């Protein structure tokens, strides 16, 4: 007589300590082994794209903040880049430099959140607090120039809403000097911890061809060995003036494209962003940040697609203009949505604990998955 075994439907529901946001994952498990993962989305849908049809072009900028709320500067950047493409306007040098500096600082802050919460998912509670302590300094820097800690509304079409305050550049230099040893401390605590490596190496392997087929982008794609970064492959703004590397996953602790690689690529990217900020603050020219902001935004009939390298991947805006004050359509290509689509494939035949680790390493933000 054989024992009757069934597959269990386990619901990691919208409220869960480790689905980052309101994501519902329906797991079909056989004991502890996962057979199927079905993500259910839409719990954070706020009709962003519909709203844009009723707003004027410059009014949409605060709404873009709230897409990927952990990378607001990047979202702003993507949107204003697209509209500037549509209007064919050039922005002053100072604006470009400040945009790059804030975007890179935002990348550091976002990766710190990703690393910290990934640590919690795996059971290490302390790196989370270390990451957030360092992120506080970045948030204070941003609060000084924009007035907000979190959702900045900093960039405007053709320029910036605010200029830098006095002494901000020196504070950024102090931050870089303070932060580099902290990165080393984080590596000592978490990255090369044997238990952490056991939990994440060779778990959730994403092969490079599958990544490309599913449209994965950002650190997740680079961890699978594909050296593709929009800042190098399709440079926008002034990124081609800076000297930085694109970290790629090499399977140092396991296989190429496993969870440890995705985590390690993010840690390396923090270092690269520090390099970019260092170079940029040496070179900031003087100027008026609001000089090129048009009085009235009424683009000609046409379309434009602008894309930026957000901390989570390629954020794209496709804007269709019909000649009026409001856009006809703004479509967002969110990186987390495409990154999430691959989760069924990479979670198969792993344990339930691994699903949590893999989900943490995809680093999704439900704000942009659901918009």
């Amino acid at each position, binding site marked *: 007589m054989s024992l009757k075994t069934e597959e269990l439907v*386990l619901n990691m529901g919208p409220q869960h300590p480790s689905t980052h946001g309101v994501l519902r994952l329906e797991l079909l498990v056989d004991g502890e082994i996962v057979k199927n993962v079905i993500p259910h989305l839409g719990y954070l849908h706020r009709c962003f794209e519909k709203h844009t049809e009723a707003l004027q072009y410059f009014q949409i900028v605060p709404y873009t903040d709230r897409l990927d709320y952990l990378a607001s500067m990047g979202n702003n950047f993507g949107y204003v880049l697209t509209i500037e493409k549509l209007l064919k306007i050039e922005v002053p040098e100072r604006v470009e430099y400040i945009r790059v500096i804030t975007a890179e600082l935002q990348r550091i802050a976002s990766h710190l959140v990703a690393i910290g919460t990934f640590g919690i998912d795996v059971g290490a509670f302390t790196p989370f607090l270390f990451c957030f302590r360092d992120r506080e300094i970045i948030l204070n820097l941003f609060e000084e120039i924009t007035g907000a800690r979190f959702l900045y509304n900093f960039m405007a079409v053709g320029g910036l809403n605010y200029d830098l305050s006095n002494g901000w550049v020196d504070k950024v230099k102090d931050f870089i000097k303070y932060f580099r040893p902290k990165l080393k401390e984080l590596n000592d605590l978490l990255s090369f911890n044997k238990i952490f490596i056991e939990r994440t190496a060779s778990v959730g392997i994403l092969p490079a061809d599958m990544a490309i087929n599913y449209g994965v982008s950002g650190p997740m794609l680079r961890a699978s060995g594909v050296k593709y970064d929009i800042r190098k492959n399709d440079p926008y703004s002034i990124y081609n003036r800076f000297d930085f590397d694109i970290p790629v996953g090499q399977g140092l602790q396991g296989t190429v494209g496993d969870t440890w690689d995705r985590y390690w690529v993010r840690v390396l990217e923090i270092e690269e962003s520090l390099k970019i900020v260092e170079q940029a603050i040496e070179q900031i020219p003087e100027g008026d940040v609001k000089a090129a902001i048009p009085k009235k935004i009424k683009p000609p009939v046409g379309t434009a697609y602008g894309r930026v390298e957000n901390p989570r991947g390629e954020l794209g805006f496709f804007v269709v203009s019909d000649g009026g004050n409001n856009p006809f359509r703004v479509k967002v290509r969110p990186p987390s949505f495409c990154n999430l689509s691959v989760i069924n494939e990479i979670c198969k035949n792993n344990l339930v*604990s691994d699903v949590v680790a893999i989900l943490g390493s995809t680093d999704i933000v439900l704000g942009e998955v659901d918009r």
Partner: protein
Amino acid sequence: MNNLVQEIIVNLLLAAAPLFLWILPYALLAVYLERKISGFMQDRLGPMRVGKWGLLQSLADIVKLLQKEDIMADAVDKKLFNLAPLLVFIGSYAAFATIPFSSIYIGSNIDLGVFFVTAISALVVAGLLLGAWASNNKYSLYGGMRTAAQIVSYEIPTAIVILSVVIIAGTFNLKEMSEQQTANIFNWYIFGGPELGLKKFILIPFMLVGTVIYFISSLAEVNRTPFDIPEAESEIIGGYHTEYSGMKFAFFFLAEYANMFAVSAIITILFFGGYQSPFGYLGNLLNIKWLVGVEQIFWFLFKGLLFVFVQMWLRWTLPRLRIDQLMVTCWKYLIPISLVNLIIIAFISLL
């Protein structure tokens, strides 16, 4: 007959009261310490508002838990649901009965001391499984299954290491073991035991191995990180205690801290001299006999709390192991090593 009953009750009170005088305040202290220590390790302060430096925080927590509504979902199995925290509580607290706090106080001086502790701690498994099953919740069931597998597996290296110490000590009685490790820090079992000679020095590396194995297994017994998969907050929310609230949750919670102290106490008695002081006794110096007993209590609590501190330290430093890695650690590494250790120690003790 009346006299007998009176005697039993008086003895019970005399034996049990000091125990509860320690354990309940310790549980409150441990909760406060955990929050403060974790705060300091994480570059923050911990509780600071309730009383100076947050000292009354535990009291506030207890009052909160006591006045909470006892939520019981409709579909739970009522009898088992109510029984589970009691079993866990009993299993953790009764283990203290045979642990000698000093030469003048032991709850019950039976010849099977360490055997009793291991056996009573096993009640905890029954309680956890019952709680997990009775909650009628898939997550709790996961937690319960994992915890049962974990605790039952890790009892084996625990028992084997205890056996190897018993071979050296010659007795299961915890008080005798502590008495044997007297006079000198180098008489402690981790340094080979009280008898001087070749045997003692050869034993030292194997006793060290035994200490490490016992410490790791005891972490798994009390469900502390890196073995806290049964209550892995980020995966299955609360595991076996997801559905509990109020006083029942307090039972689980306090029983965990009591268990932590119980295994710390056992490891100090087995390896680190029990209640013996590493230097001498002030009481002996000043010729005050009763002071020695009091000093021994201090040393015992100090060593026990030191190991509790190490357990807390590890919790906030290390990530957690996955359930299959946990099992591999136990069955493929700890058990063979401890078995070989036992055999070698047995041979050496024959010399």
